[in-house]
């Protein structure tokens, strides 16, 4: 029962902090590119520093951080399709998340602030999730088979 409790508590903390700090992981690039505003970008730098520092520290302290730093050692992954998916997925996610007004995390928080625009966004998001499970997964499997 560790997983649901830990993720629920951690989710509560980051949801609360994200609402207070107006943290967004797409608005950082957008604001910097458009108006040279670095407030949100600093949050992303903080995440990167926290993640790298945390993994390095817990690796030294004997926590469960296997294979850090990972580099190309990705067990059970088809490398060719992984590169392709990283490039296509990265470009598409960056583009559409910017058009949607923020990252999924920020948009769910804005939905919780009562903005019905992002209720519609969340509807598209969760319906898209079902679509991924039914259609897109099959398509991706075909690509993985073709590149094997």
């Amino acid at each position: 029962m560790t997983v649901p409790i830990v993720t629920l508590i951690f989710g509560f903390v980051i949801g609360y902090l994200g609402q207070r700090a107006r943290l967004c992981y797409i608005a950082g690039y957008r604001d910097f590119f458009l108006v040279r505003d670095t407030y949100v970008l600093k949050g992303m730098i903080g995440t990167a520093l926290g993640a790298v520092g945390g993994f390095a520290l817990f690796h030294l302290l004997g926590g469960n951080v296997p294979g850090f730093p990972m580099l190309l050692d990705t067990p059970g992954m088809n490398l060719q399709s992984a590169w392709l998916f990283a490039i296509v997925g990265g470009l598409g996610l960056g583009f559409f998340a910017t058009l949607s007004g923020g990252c999924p995390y920020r948009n769910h928080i804005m939905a919780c602030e009562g903005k019905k625009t992002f209720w519609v966004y969340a509807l598209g998001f969760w319906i898209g999730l079902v679509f991924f499970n039914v259609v897109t997964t099959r398509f991706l499997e075909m690509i993985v088979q073709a590149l094997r």
Partner: protein
Amino acid sequence: MHKLPPIKVSAFQAGLVMGLGAALIQAYFQIIPPPAYGICMVCHPKDLLNWLADHLLGTSWGNVTVSVQAPVLTVVGIVVGALVAAKQHGEFHLEAAREPLYHFITGFCVINFGLVLGSCPIRIIIVAGYGSLIGIVGYACLIVGAVAGSAWLRARARKQIRERIATVQYGEVTSRERPKSAPVESPTFANPKGDEPSPSGKG
């Protein structure tokens, strides 16, 4: 209800907590495998939905190892936490939806491309921080995509401003009432005689 004092957090502090927390719950609370999975706003919704569908509807959509036995509840936590924070600080206001179809489609595309990448804009930073070269390439592509999206937004905003200026100069009302060939006065210059109304009808 007793009112709690307002809490101020900077984006940097919140980001630091998120990065450190993601590393902590992987290292000491078994949120692994896959590695660097502490936060993800596309994979955790997928795990939750797939877990529910597999257990309630009998589908076989499958899950990552960490979410086979019990569901991952990050999304529920984020929604509850954001609701509590918004209510506590008086920032919960119902606002009507604007451009619903546009936001529906972008939400749909975000989840599908996000799952092709296998991470959300938060997790890709954490994966890149874990040292994965594929993650770093994905992160670079995400930034390129975000810059392209920003350029598109700027182009759209400029187009809207041009249209708005054209509407103000030539007047929406007058263009409907007058034939196109009729001369239109600019509303920015006041009529010196003051005996005729200006084209926008405000003078």
